[in-house]
């Protein structure tokens, strides 16, 4: 007994020193490429930093670039709060989220139930493969597809629309329709994700319980509500979290389909910050906006992680 206890102690000791060597490379690299730039961004956000005007004055300790940008402390942050455009971009992003996410969830649930339903086995197999295609398509290419299909003159969707309703709107030039177009492409790309997540949740309902419930009540929606839904809750929570995070990050599809236009009708927050930083060259304000965005995302993810990722 004493012997085995000692060996456990000994192995524990080697374990924790071992952990250091296993973890150190990954942690060091992530600190260098992930965290160091963030700290630098905080520095930039306190300066008036117009890219064409600032000059480089060498590096502090060899790693921290020094510029002659005037230190203005919180001026960039104050100007962001005084100006409506950043808040507008944020609320536009949340509006997008509120429109798109319920559609994805409901359509995803319908497809998941179709896949769960007995019969048509071959078609269900094909369907599961087909669902992978939208998710796997390079986001930039989804944007290209959207541009092609929503084109005012020869886009296929517009042709179908024109055939049914006898007029052809210019989807990407009208503010509301452009917003709708990017929403449709987002729903097209990510509904399959919801469907597959919810489908795998459905398969976790024990068959006996489901059959017993079906015997008891004839109404499918009662089975869905009372028996299947509890099993889907973790999946639904995961979807809510990950889609929220991804929509806050959303850039590629919209950048290619509309570049935020017409006007700023489809300018989601990532596009907005990108424009301020790289097309208006105001790195100071853009960095401050990025820091605010980071704070929002961190708060959301803390909140979310508490909900879902409890176990290690």
């Amino acid at each position, binding site marked *: 007994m004493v012997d085995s206890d000692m060996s456990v102690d000994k192995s524990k000791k080697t374990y924790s020193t071992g952990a250091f060597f296993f973890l150190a490379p990954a942690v060091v690299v992530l600190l260098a490429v992930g965290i160091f730039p963030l700290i630098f961004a905080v520095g930039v956000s306190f300066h008036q930093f117009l890219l064409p005007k600032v000059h480089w004055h060498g590096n502090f300790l060899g790693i921290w670039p020094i510029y002659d940008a005037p230190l203005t402390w919180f001026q960039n942050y104050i100007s962001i709060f005084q100006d409506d455009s950043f808040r507008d971009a944020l609320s536009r992003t949340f509006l997008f989220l509120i429109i798109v996410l319920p559609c994805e969830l409901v359509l995803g649930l319908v497809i998941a139930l179709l896949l769960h339903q007995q019969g048509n086995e071959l078609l269900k197999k094909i369907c599961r493969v087909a669902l992978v295609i939208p998710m*796997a398509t390079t986001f930039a290419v989804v944007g290209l597809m959207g541009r092609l299909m929503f084109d005012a003159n020869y886009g296929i969707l517009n042709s179908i629309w024109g055939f049914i309703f006898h007029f052809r709107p210019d989807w990407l030039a009208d503010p509301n329709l452009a917003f709708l177009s990017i929403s449709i492409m987002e729903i097209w790309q990510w509904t399959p994700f919801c469907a597959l997540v919810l489908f795998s949740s459905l398969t976790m309902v024990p*068959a006996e319980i489901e059959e017993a419930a079906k015997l008891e009540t004839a109404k499918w929606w009662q089975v869905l509500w009372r028996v299947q839904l509890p099993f889907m809750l973790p999946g639904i929570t995961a979807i809510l979290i*990950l889609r929220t995070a991804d929509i806050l990050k959303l850039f590629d599809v919209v950048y290619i389909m509309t570049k935020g236009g017409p006007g700023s009708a489809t300018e989601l927050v990532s596009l907005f910050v990108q424009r301020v930083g790289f097309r208006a060259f105001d790195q100071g304000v853009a960095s401050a906006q990025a820091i605010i965005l980071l704070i929002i995302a961190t708060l959301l993810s803390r909140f979310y992680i508490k909900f879902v990722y409890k176990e290690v």
Partner: protein
Amino acid sequence: MAGSTSKAGSTPQGFNLLHFILLLVTIVVCVFPFYWMVTTSLKEQAAILSPTPQFFFPPTLGNYTRAFEKFDIGASLVNSLIVALSTTAISLILGAPAAYAIARFDFKGKQDLWFWFISNRMISPIVVALPFFLIARQFHLLDTQLALILIYLTFNVPIVVWICADQFRNIPKELDEAATLEGYNSFAIFWRIALPLAAPGIAVSAIFSFIFSWNELLYALVLTRTNAKTAPVVATSFLSGYELPWGQIMATGTLVALPVIIFSIIVSRQLVRGLTMGAIK
């Protein structure tokens, strides 16, 4: 219809037909944009610009040859490949041991470290892209593959850690104990026992890392100009001008998207798990 719940599996005929139609609609909606892109890439410009959609047309590979000649798609595909492969390899070298440590060892701050890895999923790339651009500029890393390889580690290392940790946890601890008795140190256990057993999971994480790097646009747009342009950046670059060369654009789109789609279909079982980062099994 409601009364026939006698036996699971024997659904009435009418319902089955509706089921069939809805499944078919789902498949068509999923596949159609992809089909339309590929067929457009095989059409002549006149067929593309026709006001009525052309479903039957004489296919041509002209768009592909033109895209290779005019836009140098070949070089950007090579760039994408180099960047994606390098960052995947480095992510595995860094991430797999870290995942092993998280799965096997107990240490102070493990929970915090895990959360830190996870929270990388939530950070918007634009937040990192801004300062990284300035730093890369000062170190003459702009428009190099190295800049992309480094910054892609910020999302690839976490995904490798995530998927591999899950895989390492599934290896019975008894194997470690037996190996310790044999005189293996913890590095030998990791290298000779855990790593081979976790190979399937590591392969999946490698494919994910590759796909995410291949698909990435924002960082590549900000950090490259000409030499290190990746394929998605080139795909966006001819979206200006009055009459867009849709055939060539779609040829490029097909070349960018097709390898990833094929890859993803191969790992479709693991795909959802990877995308949810294991939040549901």
